[in-house]
């Protein structure tokens, strides 16, 4: 297939999936299978684009000559976009599989609408990834917002409606008020909206306007959840867990930070930002968001809420990478899109699996859950380690490059990265620790037969030198994992966290051309 | 100068009288009267516009042999012709307006603006409050 056809196919397949879901609305198995098959096909299309991009080509597809005067509806595959497309297309079939298990296990209604909107969201995400200019980017950005709105409000309760209002209000509000204004302003100054290597604003913008325009872009991409416009993300937690996974890991939030990265690289250009220092304020805002997000995460007992604030903090890493505007920072930010996506989706899958399998939402209730759901809790541990950034997990590489990017001029931010990693340990690790090492609380759930004092159990489990086989019949309850369709995906993504550590090199090589030479080792 | 412009004064007085009546009177028939006076003032404006000092009515003056007499100043006929149309428009407006007043009287039993507004408000309140009781059909006036 020609490159144009590959791009076209990658965009058309999710639409086809949406159509098939409608066609097969009365045959759930066929419906979910079609999503899965097409998801894999989409992923293969995107993967097939990889060698083209690494060979230096820029496959382009022009769909409409003029979306707006002088602005075509066009797609161009460049490294950053390919990376984001890979993340979106790669996690789609996995999330689809997980969603099938979750939605059935949880007996959700309106599953057809759910899968249609899901496919549309992936379509929009791929459109964002491949957008050749700001106009196309904005078009798909809005499609993404609108197609995920029914997902967020899936339960149609009063709470969902309120959350939907906040979601739509902040995302549409910021995109119309800030992003559109910034795009129009850019078009007015630069005379073009094209994403071009080295930026389009160099020499067209007054130095004093750089921070203002950057602010319009950074807050305009409201999906990046930069504080203080982060409220929509915790609110969107009312959605079913696969949606949260999609929102937080795959499509929505990554669309925001991806937008910021792409705009910094291809609209401003690194030289412009470093020479005018117009992005220094953004580094501080991002750092503030990193620290505050982590601190707030501490206070949340609801697992999904804790993960939401963790996401806010992690997104700010990527924004920080963009704001640093150094080659290493950009590569680190780009890499973090992938590593955080895989890590966070694992955590969300686990949260959903715990909800389906054990009907628990709050962390304080999860004591001893590792005994009944060892796979889930194990995956959770791996995901946490990746988010924290410990080898041998993928997350360690992105933090490494971010630190390198900050080392030259803004070394203070390395300290912030360190502090944040400590905070991450503080709010993530207790969860698997509780799961594996604490005895279940007697008042909760099915482990009532224990009946012993939790401290007793704790001491026993922690100190018992004998293998589990000796006391298992009495104390170790049988496995009560979530449905298999839920457990397999989370094991896959957990494996992905590890794999990313060993294959990070390929991603770095992919991203390297967009920023020129790199300071550190790959 | 001012003495030459006295007719404008007349026009302005008529115009303001008409507008005042339209705005201040609450009775619909009186409003229509005000509207008529207002429109008449404009007709006056146009007609005075067509007047040329020392001009004769715009009908060709012929000599006995049938040729046109030279050097005669005619008034401008165009504004008056325009006003024929404007008068027709005014009459039509009056007809539609008064017909509406008749229908309002039939439907509301009054032609006083305050009362009609009050009744409208009641209609609206009933329409929105009785929602639960009668979800479907609305009675036609």
């Amino acid at each position: 297939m020609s490159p144009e056809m590959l791009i076209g196919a990658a965009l058309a397949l999710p639409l086809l999936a949406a159509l098939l879901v409608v066609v097969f609305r009365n045959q759930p198995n066929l419906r979910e299978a079609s999503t899965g098959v097409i998801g894999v096909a989409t992923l293969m299309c995107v993967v097939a684009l990889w060698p083209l991009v690494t060979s230096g080509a820029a496959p382009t597809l022009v769909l409409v000559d003029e979306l707006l005067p002088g602005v075509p509806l066009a797609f161009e595959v460049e490294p950053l976009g390919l990376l984001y497309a890979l993340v979106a297309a790669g996690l789609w079939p996995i999330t689809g599989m997980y969603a099938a298990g979750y939605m059935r296990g949880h007996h959700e209604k309106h599953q057809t609408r759910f899968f249609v909107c899901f496919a549309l969201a992936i379509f929009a995400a791929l459109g964002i990834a491949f957008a050749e200019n700001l106009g196309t980017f904005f078009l798909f950005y809005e499609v993404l917002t609108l197609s995920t709105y029914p997902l967020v409000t899936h339960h149609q309760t009063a709470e969902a409606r309120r959350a939907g209002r906040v979601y739509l209000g902040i995302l549409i509000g910021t995109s119309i008020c800030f992003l559109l204004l910034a795009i129009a302003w850019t078009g007015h100054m630069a005379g073009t909206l094209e994403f071009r290597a080295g930026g389009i604003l160099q020499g067209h913008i007054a130095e004093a306007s750089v921070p203002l325009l950057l602010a319009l872009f950074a807050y305009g991409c409201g999906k990046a959840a930069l504080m203080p416009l982060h409220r929509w993300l915790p609110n969107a937690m009312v959605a079913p867990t696969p949606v949260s996974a999609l929102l937080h890991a795959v499509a929505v939030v990554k669309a925001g930070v991806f937008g910021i990265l792409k705009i910094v690289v291809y609209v401003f250009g690194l030289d412009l930002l470093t020479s005018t220092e117009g992005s220094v304020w953004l580094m501080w805002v991002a750092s503030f968001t990193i620290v505050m997000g982590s601190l707030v995460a501490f206070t949340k007992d609801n697992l999904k809420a804790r993960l939401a604030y963790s996401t806010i903090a992690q997104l700010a890493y990527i924004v920080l990478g963009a704001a640093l505007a150094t080659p290493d920072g950009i590569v680190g930010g780009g890499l973090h899109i992938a590593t955080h996506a895989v890590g966070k989706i694992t955590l969300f899958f686990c949260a959903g699996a715990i909800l389906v399998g054990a009907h628990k939402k709050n962390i304080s209730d999860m004591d001893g859950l590792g005994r009944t759901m060892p796979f889930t809790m194990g995956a959770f541990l791996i995901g946490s380690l990746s988010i924290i950034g410990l080898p041998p997990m993928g997350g360690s590489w992105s933090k490494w490059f971010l630190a390198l990017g900050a080392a030259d001029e803004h070394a203070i931010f390395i300290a912030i990265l360190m502090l944040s990693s400590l905070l991450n340990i503080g709010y993530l690790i207790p969860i698997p620790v509780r799961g594996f090492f604490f005895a279940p609380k007697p008042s909760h759930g099915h482990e009532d037969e224990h009946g012993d004092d939790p401290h007793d159990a704790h001491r026993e489990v922690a100190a018992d030198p004998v293998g589990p086989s000796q006391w298992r019949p009495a104390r170790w309850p049988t496995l009560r994992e979530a449905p298999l369709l839920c457990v397999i995906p989370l094991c896959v993504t957990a494996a992905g966290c590890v794999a990313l550590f060993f294959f990070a090199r390929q991603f770095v090589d992919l991203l390297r051309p967009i920023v020129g030479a790199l300071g550190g080792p790959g | 100068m001012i003495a030459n412009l006295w007719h404008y004064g007349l026009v302005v007085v008529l115009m303001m009288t008409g507008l005042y009546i339209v705005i201040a009177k609450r009775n619909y028939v009186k409003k229509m009267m005000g509207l008529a006076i207002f429109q008449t003032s404009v007709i006056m404006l146009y007609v005075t516009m067509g007047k040329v000092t020392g001009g004769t009515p715009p009908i060709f003056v012929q000599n006995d042999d049938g040729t046109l007499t030279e050097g005669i100043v005619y008034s401008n006929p165009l504004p008056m012709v325009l006003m024929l149309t404007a008068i027709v428009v005014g009459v039509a407006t009056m007809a539609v307006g008064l017909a509406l007043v008749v229908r309002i009287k039939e439907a509301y039993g009054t032609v006083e603006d305050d009362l009609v507004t009050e009744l409208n408000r009641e209609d609206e309140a009933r329409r929105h409050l009785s929602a639960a009781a009668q979800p479907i059909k609305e009675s036609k006036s």
Partner: protein
Amino acid sequence: MTLDQLPVLVILIPLLTAPLIVLIRTPAVVRLMAIAAAAASAFCAAMLVARVGEPISYHMGGWTPGIGIELRATKASAFVLALVTGIATVALLLGTRGTRLDVRGTSDRSDATGGQRSREHLYYAAFLTCLVGLCGMVITGDAFNVFVFLEISSLSTYALVAMGPRRRAFSAAFNYLVLGTIGGTFVLIGIGLLYQMTGTLNGPAISARIQEIGDPRTLHVAFGFLFVGFAIKLAVFPLHQWLPNAYAESPSAVSSFLAGTATKVIYFQLIRMCLVVFGADYVFGTLHFGSILGPLSLLGMFAGSLAAIYQLSLKRLLAYSSIGQVGYLTLALSLGTEDGLYAGLLHLGAHGVTKTGLFLLASVIIAHVGTDRLASLNGLGKRMPLVAFLFVVGGIGLIGVPGTAGFVSKWALLQAALAGDHLFLAGAILVSSLLAVMYVWRVVEVMYFREPPERAPLRPGYDWGALAPAGLLLGLSIAVGLYSEPICVYMRSAAAQLFAGGGAP
């Protein structure tokens, strides 16, 4: 040969059909006649759009301009004509196939006054007369003719509004009549003063004379009268009181038609008055008209949209939204640049198409649910999924989400504001779109998130007479949103032509 007659055919066909309809009276026949006349007129207008390059000047009765009346088809006026006649055709389709027209006196039951015979023919006659007035206003090049056609359309509009299903239609029509007549008369005064200063009624000729006579005070007064007159008819912010009642109380087909055309035609008059008759230099340079119209537009944008958020019924909500949208139109004009004019013309088309589509949907809803109270629309997404979906499409068009025509025009407006270094205006435009999000989403929430009432009968089947046109219009909005090149090129040249004084010879 016939092609040369296109400008006059556009108004002549409905003008001759209207009296015929009154004579024939048979409902089934007159319905077809009205649709055929509007469609023929629309066809002529479309032909004009295709043919017009340099302005086409048509001399009525063969008299040269100055003595006789001239019809002028410029690119812009041909477009507005096509929009108006097209929307009229679409709105007339409402009520053809099994639709219940909510027009007083047309239903099979006798109305309050006990009239036994159907008076449907009067509705169609008034409709076509209104179309004649609107088209005539657009195409005539004669100032007094503008007034005559304005009154033709206004008078028939009063009658049409009064045909609304509730008694409140009468008082709405009466208030509209009083305000509309004041507006029309103001226009007449302005035209008179212009004539007094220039001695001619032909648009371009007036313009040429104004260049010569300088800046006398009478001209200021004439401009003031004309502006206030048009502002009343256009529902510019503080003079908008008539609009919500008139739109909300009139029959559905009429509100669909008026919402898409009436204010648009008047807006076009305002443009021509500023650019063709008085000239951009005089209006925006000497009179600083932009600094009056701009703030009024901003107020209108915010007040209209804010009021729309608090409405309890669908048509009223859409009507207030129109006031807000008129604010965009006048804001575009107030920039006083070619870019602004271009944006204004684009928005004229985009909003006309979108709002008509939405009103048509409202009429489908009224036909099936029996009312347009928002509280009765609970759960409409389940009961009428297609209608609800189309409403969302139209709603995002109003907001100006990319991929709709509304975005194309909003983009042009933003660019125009930025080109004039009005960063503040650009921000205000965007903030006011947020208000649009709010009022559109209020309806969406009602339709999709409230449970449908338990025993709410619903007229079964879809009313394709209204739904198909609505789908067509909203589809057009999406098509333009995705492929705007032809329309943008056309509007760009139309704006250039107007800005150069309407292509004055």
